[in-house]
């Protein structure tokens, strides 16, 4: 009985659209021109929002903010593949995801402005609270997916997190529960190469994050996270598989955090300009534009209209957010329990 091989796995990577805007037609997902345009417009809107939020923070009109610059394809491509009944479980950096899933933009600004009302999502949008404690919400996504399965709903959960989150115990426990209960959940790991100042290679000795799925008995795949077609295709297939009872999938979106970690961070302390420059060339919006231009779906005035529409949308959101009257201090007591305790009623008088 010599040494025998009893199990093996291989990790796939999917690339469809390159930096020059050239696509591998054989892999291109079946998207109508309208859908492609919609993807482009959502990505532009997400970036426009992000840019504005950074300015508002500088002006002191909102608090610390986490930019999504460079991750638009990973965020919009994944959520675009989701159906209405699917749920998203965002981390703090999913501004593009929650907006594309139906969260009102002004509420996203409210949240970063330090107001809980920014987390109130529309009833039918199926957006869970943003989670700040890294990795913890992965378990909520898995639990919700288990509930979907229990109820026989035709829905799946998308859990969003970063490369750093894969080091947390909750990532492990969530992935393992998902595998054991074959929960309809898709794990979207936006590997933006950094966890604040810690580079991807110091986060784990594994060559890829996708391969971590093998430890839980289901598939993991790495996609070019700046390639919206690859991101969309992988997510669509994973969601269909999940809803069909095929269990979970881990998707590693290979992307890059172009900004500082948050407005409270200074990335120049720990990473080289060269690296950032190199990734500029891989911009997710630029390459989609080049692709659309080739297909005759993009021209200057289309660009102008898209930019103006996005700017107006963000203007609206900003106005609406600033128009919201200050919250009542007593709200913090009112919403702690369903009903106030005797002690809390006394404390109400302090306001």
């Amino acid at each position, binding site marked *: 009985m010599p040494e025998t091989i009893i199990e093996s796995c291989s990790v796939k990577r999917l690339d469809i659209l390159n930096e020059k805007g050239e696509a591998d037609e054989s892999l291109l997902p079946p998207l109508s021109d309208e859908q492609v345009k919609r993807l482009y417009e959502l990505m532009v809107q997400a970036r426009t929002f992000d840019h504005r939020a950074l300015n508002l923070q500088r002006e002191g009109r909102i608090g610390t903010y986490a930019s999504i610059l460079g991750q638009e394809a990973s965020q919009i491509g994944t959520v675009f593949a989701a159906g209405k009944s699917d*749920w998203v*479980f965002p981390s703090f950096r999913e501004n593009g995801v929650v907006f594309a899933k139906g969260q009102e933009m002004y509420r996203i600004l409210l949240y970063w402005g330090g107001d*809980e*009302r920014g*987390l*109130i*999502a529309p009833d039918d949008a199926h957006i*869970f*609270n943003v*989670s700040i*404690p890294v990795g*913890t*919400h*992965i*378990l*909520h*996504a*898995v*639990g*919700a*997916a*288990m*509930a*979907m399965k*229990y109820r026989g709903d035709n829905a799946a*959960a998308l859990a969003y997190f970063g490369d750093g989150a894969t080091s947390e*115990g*909750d990532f492990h*426990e*969530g992935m*393992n*529960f998902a595998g*054991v*209960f074959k929960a309809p959940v898709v794990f979207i790991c936006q590997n933006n190469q950094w966890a604040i100042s810690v580079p991807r290679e110091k986060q784990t000795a594994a060559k890829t994050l996708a391969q971590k799925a093998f430890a839980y008995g289901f598939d993991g795949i790495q996609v070019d996270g700046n390639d919206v077609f690859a991101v969309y295709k992988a997510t669509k297939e994973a969601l269909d598989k999940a809803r069909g009872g095929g269990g979970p999938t881990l998707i590693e979106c290979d992307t890059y955090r172009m900004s500082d970690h948050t407005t409270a961070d200074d990335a120049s302390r720990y990473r080289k300009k060269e690296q950032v420059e190199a990734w500029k060339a891989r911009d997710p919006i630029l390459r989609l534009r080049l692709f659309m231009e080739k297909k005759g779906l993009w021209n200057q005035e289309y660009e102008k209209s898209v930019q103006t529409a996005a700017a107006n949308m963000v203007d609206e959101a900003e106005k609406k957010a600033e128009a919201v009257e200050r919250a009542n201090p007593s*709200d*913090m007591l009112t*919403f*702690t*329990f*369903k009903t106030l*305790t*005797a*002690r809390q009623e006394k404390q109400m008088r302090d306001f």
Partner: protein
Amino acid sequence: MPTMNMVQAINLALKEEMQRDKDVVILGEDVGRDGGVFRITEGLFDQFGPERVMDTPLAESGIVGTAIGMAAYGLRPVAEVQFMGFIYPAVDQIFNHAARLRSRSRGRYSASLVVRTPYGVGIKSPEHHSESSEAHFCHMPGLKVVVPSSPYNAKGLLISSIRDPDPVLFLESTRLYRMIKEEVPEGEYTVPLGKARVVQEGKDVTIVAWGSMLQRTLQAVAGTGAEVIDLMTLNPFDEETVYASVKKTGRAVIVQEAPRTGGFGAEIAASIAEEAMLYLRGPIVRVAACDAVLPLPKLEDYYMPTAARIQKAVEEVMKY
């Protein structure tokens, strides 16, 4: 009316709530075919199947974290943590999420779930199987903490906890599981959360206790003029009942199983010292475990409050 012990009463509450409401599901380690290491979930796996009585992988944060997701989606999960000494890996999910979900979303979502766990010294079990850590959980707004002291109130309190719109930590004294039998009605009844009960009336001294310490206190002061209050719910606790009694007796003793420093008895004492001070004749005395790491079984009897120490405390306050 059938008489049963606390294990049977809790099992009955779970069974009846699961029959009543398809959204009630159970998850935890060994809660399925094995029926739980204390047999609390005995028979439920056979009756309701693996979809509603889920044996989970060995991961406490995973158990509570997925339960939060289930609750957010609309289910009413009852999660079991096998022993309170193993609840710490789930503290992050309980504190940062279960307790906050409603507030963070301004009512949009809530985590109406129950986390059940056996607690306390007294069955000579191995290390980490005897903790009484309730105080940690009473300092977390948004979380309710319930500790039954008898089969009857265990069933009624658990039903209330399952139906409560907010997360509830439900603590079950392993010492009480099979110690007392009493009449427990079949079928639905509830014991309200947030209300204490006066178990023994008296004029001399108010003794506040809960869970495992109630029986010990009753043994210690049976037939005396001590008034004994069973808190049943620790957070929010029934201030009115406690203050009313202290104002009547003018003396207060608090009995807790946990180590003295920072235990929940401190909150009771501090509240009395703030709200009923002018009625007090003398010091408020706490009877508690010593400030030591919980010992292995050989020394555990020296660790926790004894009837003798409760009596000593009463004598002390009666000096005033």
